[in-house]
């Protein structure tokens, strides 16, 4: 049983999706229960996988018993095991949150199809992480993206469907560019297996086809992860998606695209190619730095809370890419810890925004006055999450930014440290504004004399149901636990980074 874990982690959510659809017409449809159970099982399996990987090295699973260069291989190593735990955790916690929220946002009649798509999205994401085959990665990329396009369209606002269309067009272009890259590598080497490719590629590094394929991979996956010049689809899609889907899109889908990019860079093309043959360092330094600043700057202008969080993701993706540009171990550790940190913090922030929408329907930041007294626990969660995003010590956000800054100094790129600080400052400004409105401004302060007396009773506590408050709370608690016990994510990330860079 245990040897089949790498495939089970993918199969369980995908099967759950079909079972949900099969039960559609019957009397007992347990769509939410099945989804939550499936994602929970996947989470447990991924924990066990990470444990095995940490104790006894990478797991290689041959699909159908076919030997690797011919058959498809699933690989769980210290990097994929780590990302798998993060993504399964976030998708499980979000599906717990989904119980109440989906009924209200998608409507009673659409819950079955919603959860079927949700399980499919989760299964596709897990597949991208565990696969060791380039074409298989494309298929899973499209499975998760197609489910994602449809789920964005479920959003309550009318414009969500337009956002979904734009996301589909750009996402498909990205995936198709990736596919051309796969084709070019296949023409040159005759293999699709990542480990096999990394053996065969060094001999033909200087070939123009191989370099062009690298560019296609990077551009294609940059569109999928919404790196700065390709971010146009993200704010609409992430901002207008249903409350349950925004955290998954922002915390899992773009992170997994970043994971795929790192996989292609370090496992398929080796660090020797990325840092010596092509000017990837310079491109990533520029791309990451600009994404951080422009993303954070664009966030300042947003008035809608979900749109603000979505724009903030553009800046946060910049951090992850920046860490790759230093070409050293510390910077890469920063990137990998940031995947974890951004995933849990952004998911918790989006979930709080979701419970806010569930309870009050408010999305404009300016109308959140006095919300701290009304929904204290949710807003406290939001505040901690926001502090984590800024990078305050004792949260995971601090560790990743600290590691990134150390990596920059190690690489001799001291001028990037002020950029990281400036970006953190911009983060502090836009999150600070929300925190100020939520906690320190009340309705009475406005001083309009003509207020009705009944409206003054707004300050009484009116918290969202526990099933909506608890999931984001668990995620921010984890951020603090691992912010204090920093050695756990850092040790795991160090192991993953050593493996990616091919260091002993």
């Amino acid at each position: 049983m245990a040897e089949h874990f790498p495939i089970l982690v993918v199969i369980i959510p995908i099967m759950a999706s079909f079972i949900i659809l099969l039960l559609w017409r019957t009397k007992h449809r347990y769509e939410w229960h099945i989804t939550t159970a499936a994602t929970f099982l996947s989470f447990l399996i991924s924990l066990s996988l990470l444990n095995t990987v940490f104790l006894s090295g990478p797991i290689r699973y041959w699909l159908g018993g076919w030997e690797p260069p011919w058959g498809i291989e699933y690989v769980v190593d210290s990097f994929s095991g780590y990302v798998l735990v993060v993504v399964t955790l976030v998708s499980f916690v979000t599906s717990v949150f989904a119980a109440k929220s989906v009924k209200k946002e998608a409507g009673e009649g659409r819950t079955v199809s919603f959860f079927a798509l949700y399980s499919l999205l989760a299964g596709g994401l897990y597949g991208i992480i565990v696969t060791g085959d380039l074409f298989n990665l494309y298929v899973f990329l499209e499975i998760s993206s197609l489910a994602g396009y449809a789920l964005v369209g479920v959003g309550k606002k009318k414009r969500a469907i337009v956002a979904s269309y734009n996301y589909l067009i750009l996402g498909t272009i990205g995936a198709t560019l990736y596919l051309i890259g796969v084709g070019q590598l296949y023409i040159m080497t005759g293999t699709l297996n990542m480990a096999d490719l990394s053996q065969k590629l060094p001999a033909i590094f200087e070939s123009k086809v191989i370099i062009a394929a690298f560019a296609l991979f990077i551009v294609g996956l940059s569109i999928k992860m919404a790196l700065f010049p390709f971010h146009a689809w993200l704010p609409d899609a992430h901002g207008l998606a249903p409350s349950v889907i925004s955290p998954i899109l922002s915390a899992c889908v773009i992170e997994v695209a970043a994971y795929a990019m790192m996989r292609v860079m370090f496992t398929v093309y080796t660090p020797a190619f990325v840092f010596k043959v092509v000017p990837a360092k310079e491109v990533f330094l520029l791309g990451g730095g600009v994404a951080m600043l422009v993303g954070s700057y664009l966030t300042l202008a947003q008035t809608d809370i979900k749109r603000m969080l979505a724009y903030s993701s553009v800046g946060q993706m910049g951090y992850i890419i920046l860490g790759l540009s230093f070409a050293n171990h510390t910077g890469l550790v920063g990137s990998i810890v940031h995947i974890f940190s951004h995933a849990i913090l952004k998911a918790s922030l989006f979930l709080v925004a979701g419970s806010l929408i569930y309870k009050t329907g408010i999305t404009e930041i300016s109308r959140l006055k006095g919300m701290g007294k009304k929904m204290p626990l949710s807003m406290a969660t939001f505040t901690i999450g926001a502090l984590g995003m800024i990078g305050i010590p004792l949260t995971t956000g601090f560790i990743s930014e600290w590691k990134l800054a150390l990596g920059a100094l190690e690489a001799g790129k001291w001028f990037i440290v002020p950029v990281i600080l400036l970006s953190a400052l911009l983060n502090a400004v836009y999150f600070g504004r929300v925190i100020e409105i939520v906690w320190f401004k009340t309705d009475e302060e406005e001083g309009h004399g003509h207020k009705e007396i009944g409206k003054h009773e707004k300050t009484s506590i009116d918290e969202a149901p526990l099933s909506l408050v608890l999931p984001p709370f668990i995620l921010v608690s984890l951020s603090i636990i691992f912010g204090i016990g920093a050695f756990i994510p850092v040790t795991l990330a160090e192991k993953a980074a050593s493996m990616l860079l091919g260091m002993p």
Partner: protein
Amino acid sequence: MIDYVVSKSNYWIYVVLMMIGFYAMISKKNLIRKLIGLNIFQTAVILFFISTGVKKGATIPIAFHEKGEIIRAIEALQYTNPLPHVLMLTAIVVMISTTGVALSIVIKIYDAYKTIEEDEIPDKEE
């Protein structure tokens, strides 16, 4: 020059087709036309993969059997590599599903806005 272009004609055709699709996606305002552009874009890539597997006078990669025993295995030089074709079967499925999802999204857009012209859809939520 001509020889160079002709000898690599499959790649030239695929790139030209892809750019036609790309142009349609960028310049057309009608959502269905954009979608057709996307289809041309994806089909071009399928053509690229298929054309890499073509070999003149090649046979199928099946070993010759007689009375349940393999009498002659086929040489790698003699057969057409089926893998690019098999990959494209999957890619075609992906393409069809993408088109299906996109068409249903266009229907939803039409329901919401009563138009499929991009510039007639308001930029902001009214």
